[in-house]
């Protein structure tokens, strides 16, 4: 082969290396086999090695790619071909970055640049952007891509690459619209040019972008699509999983993130993708720390720190050190030595540009100083934070500093300002799950407010502070508490008991007609475990699963833990009996208590009970008015023996009831028009992602997500299904699940079960319930009476259950409809 022909063949292999790596590899091998390794053929050999390198990189073999590029550089240098050497270095920039040496890659780029054509410099910039991104220098990365785009002309491959890298940089910078435009453009270019894997990369970044924007449903949908299209590119699939995991951590979903990282890390190890691996280990350490696993966090962070240090990524190393220190803080008693290391890390974080992480660790350092009894050092650290202006940590520091100085009022003011900031930011999210996770940034601040309120020992102060937090979590945007007089007026004869958790301490505040009392109930863990045991027993009983015993013992134990202090102390104080008596109860739960079937407690056997997300939402529910002769709809879901009979029964109890076919479109449409809806179906609660909880219809599941589209949900919803009342509250004030979704959209009352329920027993319960409802009893009371009569447990009345329903029947609530106060 003549030298020129060999060069042309090698160039052709180079052209193909990105789009058809297997063919490029065969072609380049052919060139190398047919030319001598000396003399004028060396240029062709240099180009062929570069083509083999790019093909190897495409196929995921980074070490082989590096080897070929080193050969290409040395052949070119020995033949005195500086341009060819620079071209090989251009490709090496990318490979060295991926292998864990972004700093060195940038140095290589600087060496190569003088010998390259303008278009090649543009390509170099595209690769440089990746190295800059790895170093956390996203702004510079985006600028290099800007420069490249002007020069690249029609080169679809590099143009697509520039769009991809810029899109990612912009996503990190929070410029979501621009990022989406870039990624969309990248996908268009790749599709038109037949660059399938670039297309999948662009699509692979969509879940990351969506999660960064807080759109988790889109993120998971895009993830599943990308997962199948990246099949066969294990290293890229792993990188995509890491990207999504990072976004999920930012969205406070560490459990989901951990699943993805556990899948990604072994693949990255196998591919030798050191850069991505170190980042994945850093993320995993963060997740492990956040999910209460400090030992594993310490292991992962140590591996990440070693990897990052070896790669010269000094900007990320302090983040790994921070996790190491925080893990130690969870495992060891605080010490002066640990504190000194923490303060050194505070400075290192700040120097590396992680100002938020630095501030957060400084606050923790101040807390450690306090634990060590060094008030002056704590005050010094807090003082430095307090002058930062805005942000959760600043408010936290200001509040704690004022509290330490004895200025409780000032401390409360700082907490309130911080909660208002958090609330205003979270209000922008329409999806209640995203919102509930977004506000968790403010949790330490809310904790501080509660701690200060608890110190006052005053029930009304504690109630106000827990309500402020619940208002923020619930999406009002403002840390406001309901007016106590107004609340009392609406309560009438009822007693409201709000449970508040502070660390592992559980506290109850009871609002009775004549006082507000605060009682400390002891460790929350004991109550949480008793709740889990009770639910376990109840589930087993309802599943008729062999040896399960009646859950009465656990219920009595819970009653003692939750209400004992409220009732006993009262009876001892002169002239005042048990403040609960036989009054109807309104309960505002916290944490695991959202899963407790309250009517099951012995004292509630004949007592109407309603469960609300906050006192404020209960109060708002009490203001909802019935629509005279509103529509009633009934749905019977598939695969249930008694659902059909139940739907018919609803029609008998409430003449004019409309039967709606159990299909998603029809049911959604009916829910938007109905005043009362009864759904007898299978139900599924999804604890990991509560908005994926669903009821089963003929054409598939109707998820809580689907309900978010309703404009006017029914005033009363009866979910006659298993587990439909179950909720998970990432933060108090936003119980997420089917019932919670209806209530957050404006339903006044939802009756639903917290455990599996038996098909036949449910029909019996619901028959009595609807009979009582039609006779004018409000839902909470009707449910209590029906449960007692049929001895069927598990259903709970959520929201405001005190208003009778106008169901059109003679003698029904139409006449009884009245001001609930």
């Amino acid at each position, binding site marked *: 082969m003549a030298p020129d022909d060999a060069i042309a063949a090698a160039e052709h292999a180079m052209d193909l290396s990105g789009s058809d790596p297997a063919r490029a590899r065969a072609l380049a091998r052919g060139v190398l086999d047919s030319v001598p390794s000396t003399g004028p053929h060396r240029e062709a050999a240099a180009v062929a090695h570069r083509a083999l390198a790019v093909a190897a990189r495409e196929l995921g073999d980074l070490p082989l790619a590096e080897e070929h590029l080193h050969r290409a550089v040395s052949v070119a240098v020995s033949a005195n071909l500086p341009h060819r050497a620079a071209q090989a270095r251009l490709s090496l920039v990318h490979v060295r970055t991926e292998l864990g040496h972004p700093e060195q890659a940038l140095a290589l780029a600087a060496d190569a640049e003088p010998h390259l054509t303008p278009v090649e410099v543009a390509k170099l910039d595209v690769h440089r952007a990746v190295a800059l991104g790895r170093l956390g220098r996203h702004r510079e990365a985006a600028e290099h891509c800007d420069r490249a785009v002007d020069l690249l002309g029609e080169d679809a491959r590099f143009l697509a690459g520039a769009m991809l890298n810029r899109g990612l940089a912009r996503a990190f910078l929070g410029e979501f619209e621009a990022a989406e435009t870039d990624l969309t453009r990248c996908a268009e270019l790749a599709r038109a040019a037949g660059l399938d894997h670039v297309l999948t990369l662009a699509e692979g970044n969509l879940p990351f972008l969506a999660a960064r924007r807080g759109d988790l449903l889109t993120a998971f949908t895009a993830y599943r699509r990308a997962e199948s299209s990246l099949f066969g590119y294990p290293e890229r699939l792993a990188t995509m999983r890491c990207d999504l995991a990072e976004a999920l951590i930012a969205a406070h979903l*560490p*459990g*989901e*993130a*951990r*699943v993805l990282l*556990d899948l990604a890390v072994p693949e990255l190890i196998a591919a030798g993708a050191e850069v991505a691996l170190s980042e994945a280990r850093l993320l995993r350490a963060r997740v*492990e720390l*956040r*999910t*209460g*696993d400090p*030992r*594993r966090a310490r*292991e992962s962070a140590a591996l990440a720190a070693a990897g990052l240090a070896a790669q010269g990524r000094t900007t990320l190393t302090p983040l790994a050190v921070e996790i190491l220190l925080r893990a130690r803080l969870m495992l060891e008693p605080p010490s002066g030595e640990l504190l000194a290391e923490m303060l050194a890390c505070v400075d290192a974080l700040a120097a590396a540009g992680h100002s938020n992480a630095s501030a957060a660790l400084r606050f923790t350092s101040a807390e450690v100083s306090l634990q060590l009894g060094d008030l002056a050092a704590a005050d010094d650290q807090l003082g430095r934070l307090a002058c930062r202006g805005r942000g959760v940590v600043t408010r936290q520091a200001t509040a704690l500093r004022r509290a330490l100085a004895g200025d409780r009022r000032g401390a409360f003011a700082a907490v309130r300002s911080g909660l208002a900031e958090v609330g205003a930011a979270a209000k922008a999210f329409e999806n209640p799950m995203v919102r509930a996770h977004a506000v968790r940034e403010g949790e330490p601040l809310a904790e501080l407010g509660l701690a200060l309120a608890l110190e006052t020992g005053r029930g009304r102060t504690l109630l106000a502070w827990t309500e402020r937090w619940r208002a923020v979590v619930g999406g009002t945007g403002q840390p406001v508490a309901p007016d106590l007089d107004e609340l009392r007026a609406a309560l009438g004869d009822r007693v409201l008991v709000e449970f508040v958790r502070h660390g592992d301490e559980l506290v109850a505040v009871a609002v009775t007609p004549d006082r507000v009392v605060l009682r400390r109930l002891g460790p929350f*863990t004991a109550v*949480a*475990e*008793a709740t*889990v*045991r009770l*639910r*376990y*027993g109840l*589930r*087993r009983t*309802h*599943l*008729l*699963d*062999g*040896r*399960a*015993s009646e859950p009465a*013992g*656990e219920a009595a*134990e819970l009653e003692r833990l939750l209400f004992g202090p409220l009732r006993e102390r009262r009876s001892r104080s002169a002239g005042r009996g048990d403040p609960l008596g036989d009054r109807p109860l309104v309960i505002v739960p916290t944490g*695991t208590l959202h899963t407790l079937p309250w009517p099951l407690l012995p004292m509630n056997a004949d007592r109407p009970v309603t469960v609300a997300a906050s006192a404020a939402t209960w109060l708002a529910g009490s203001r909802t008015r019935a629509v005279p002769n509103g529509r009633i709809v009934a749905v019977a879901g598939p*695969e*249930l*023996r008694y659902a059909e009979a139940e739907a018919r029964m609803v029609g008998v109890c409430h003449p004019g009831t409309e039967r709606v076919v159990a299909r998603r479109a029809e049911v959604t449409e009916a829910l938007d028009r109905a005043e009362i809806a009864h759904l*007898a*179906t*299978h*139900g*599924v*609660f999804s*604890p*990991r992602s509560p908005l994926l909880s669903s009821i089963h219809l003929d054409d598939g599941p109707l998820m809580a997500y689907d309900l978010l589209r309703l404009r006017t949900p029914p005033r009363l919803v009866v979910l006659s*299904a*298993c*587990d439909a009342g179950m909720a*998970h509250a*990432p933060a108090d004030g936003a119980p997420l699940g089917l019932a919670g979704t209806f209530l957050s959209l404006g339903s006044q009352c939802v009756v639903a079960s917290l455990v*599996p*329920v*038996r*098909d*036949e027993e*449910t029909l019996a319960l619901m028959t009595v319930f609807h009979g009582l409802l039609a006779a004018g009893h409000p839902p909470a009371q009707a449910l209590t009476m029906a449960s007692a009569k049929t001895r069927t447990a598990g259903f709970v009345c959520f929201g405001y259950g005190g208003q009778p329903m106008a169901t059109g029947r003679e003698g029904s609530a139409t006449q009884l409809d009245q001001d609930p106060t």
Partner: protein
Amino acid sequence: MTRHPPTIDDESLIAALRLAAGHDPVPAHVSDAARAVFGLRLPGAATARPVATPAPSGVRSSEETRLLRFAAAELTVELEVTSLDGLVDLAGQVSPCPEAGTLVEIRTLHLTQSRELSPTGQFAVTGLPPGWFSVVCHRPEHAPVATSWTRIRP
């Protein structure tokens, strides 16, 4: 959500052989982990092995079961697993209900929680890290019964 220890695959076997042949040094964390696991051994304990749980019927739920059942000669340990926010809640029951003074230990690789059984033989632990776990039932004057190690994913 859960799976039992897999049989060793070819890659792990080759890796083990390489380690055994002294080609690669044994990484420090492997020895540490081995020592930790050795410390979890229970001499004389009977192993309760997993048995199938029947699918529920006649209820308004089509959910896949989250119940696990382990059986030894004379004891059955049943468990229900719930994952929340990356942590795991476990509830369970030992049957037939053992005598008073029976303790269960819920063991993970790094921490062990101990609970007294309720009068009906029930117990619960909340907020466990996901990963490998085993439940050990200590009855007075009996050899302990331990469920085979099982993995919970977050």
